[in-house]
């Protein structure tokens, strides 16, 4: 193959910094997983919504009605896997209380994973005969048909508690309001933060943002999950430091008038003498390595 421009990626200004940043984040996560695995006291703060799960399942047991879980409208990816991981600990509580469950799916592959994981929970609790394969169902893979089906199940079975976790879109409010109509306790978490306000308005407890990812670490206390949570924390702190330092650098850069002969190359508008925001150092840097 004949090339006119090779190693383009690394020739681009500062492209390696971006790769380095991501490698740093990966290193933080892996290092903390190892550290947590060695039993170094890694602790995480309280997450209020998650303390309510046992209470919600308990109340469902009292009234003798099922609990409902929906892993969102995602196809099989890390988000739905995370949702199902959280559900597995909810199901464990439900099995101990003897509460019936409903797990409604939007995707065939997610249904397969959920089926297997829920069955494993019943097996590990020593009651495989209580597992009803039809309690984990596929409803539909069309957004509003799924919403109609879930709303129907909520209303017909008068579910006592609902757990909406995963990627939800416009249908979130249809399902959550129907659950309100039958008086269910609701705990929700979504990675689509556009839907979070609607869950806040309709649900009793909402996990904000990446509390969703923290949930499985909080519930299970497994070293791997705790470690990766702490690693992500480190990355957040580094990013905050970066923003502060870069902002100072940008402040001085934005105050320095650009010499008249360089303005043309930078694509300045008429009468512009200072760099605009996207023309500042880091803004240009992150743009330059895009293809």
């Amino acid at each position, binding site marked *: 193959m004949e090339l006119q421009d090779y190693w383009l990626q690394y020739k681009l200004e500062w492209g390696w910094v971006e790769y380095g940043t991501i490698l740093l984040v990966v290193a933080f996560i892996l290092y903390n997983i190892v550290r947590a695995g060695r039993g170094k006291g890694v*602790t995480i703060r309280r997450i209020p919504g998650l303390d309510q799960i046992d209470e919600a399942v308990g109340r469902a047991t009292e009234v003798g009605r099922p609990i409902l879980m929906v892993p969102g409208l995602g196809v099989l990816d890390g988000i739905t896997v995370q949702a199902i991981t959280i559900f597995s600990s909810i199901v464990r509580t439900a099995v101990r209380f003897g509460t019936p469950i409903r797990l409604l799916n939007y995707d065939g592959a997610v249904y397969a994973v959920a089926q297997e994981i829920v069955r494993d929970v019943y097996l590990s609790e020593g009651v495989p005969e209580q597992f009803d394969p039809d309690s984990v169902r596929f409803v539909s893979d069309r957004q509003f048909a799924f919403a109609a*089906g879930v709303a129907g199940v909520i209303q017909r079975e008068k579910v006592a508690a609902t757990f909406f976790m995963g990627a939800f879109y416009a249908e979130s409010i249809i399902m959550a309001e129907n659950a309100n109509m039958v008086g269910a306790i609701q705990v929700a978490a979504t990675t689509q933060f556009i839907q979070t306000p609607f869950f806040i308005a309709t649900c009793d407890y909402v996990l904000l943002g990446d509390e969703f990812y923290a949930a499985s670490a909080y519930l299970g206390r497994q070293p791997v999950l705790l470690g990766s949570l702490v690693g992500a924390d480190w990355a957040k702190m580094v990013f905050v430091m970066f923003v502060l330092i*870069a902002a100072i650098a940008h402040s001085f850069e934005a105050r320095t008038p650009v010499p008249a002969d360089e303005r043309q190359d930078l694509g300045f508008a008429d009468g512009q003498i200072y760099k605009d*925001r996207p023309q500042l150092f880091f803004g240009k840097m992150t743009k330059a390595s895009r293809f």
Partner: protein
Amino acid sequence: MIDLLAQAQPDNVFTRAWWDALVTREESWQILPTAFKFTVAAILTVGLYSLLYRENRFYRFVEHLFIGLATGFSVVGIVWEPVLHQKWWVPMVGAAGTDETAMKLAYWPWAVVLPIGVLAFFVFSKKHGWLSRIPIGIILGLWAGQQFNAFQNRYLPQLADSARPFIPNQFTLSSRLDPSGTLTVPDAINNLIVMATFIVVLSYFLYSFEQQSKLFQRSAIAGRWLLMVGFGAIFGTTMMTRFSLFIDRAYFLLIEWLKLGPIA
């Protein structure tokens, strides 16, 4: 008028000609009256709306009809036609050339995908359940591999943009008519607010601290409040779009179906 049915020989049932004949046979009632279609659509709409009162048999009927139609369409229109037929079957078997079209080669290795997919059905087997992890693992692995590039493309430019200059380069108030690049006092203050919001909200999402220090606790609470401002803004903007959807349906029911007013 074509009559492929006449050409089809009775002994070659299920051939392409027979199938074409079956689906292309014309009938006199072919065009359903618009009024009938509108009425069906309106009844279905009202059926779904009846959920607002409470769950009832009418809703249950429409719900099951909806799920049935939707799933049927997924099978044909979303999975078979664009994916399995176009991306798997046609490349795998190819096609013979005709006078006007070139032959398509048969890329037979696509055949191995079918057994891989079928492995997922082992999920119902107690003994060989682990085999279902292979197709699921392939899907999840491909997803996981894409996330590194996605993180770089999505978040690093956002971080760079969050680092805003906060020292004004022109000590005036208004900036509406100034050329781009001018940073007035209000701009600088807004930039400071943007950065403070970003950092304060992010501080709420730190988990590995018990939030003992007063400063950290206050910052986390402020972070939650600022988040609520952000969520409120989403709530307000989304409400508008949702109402326009309802107005569209109301227009269908009242104007197009019941003809209660002139059609715009």
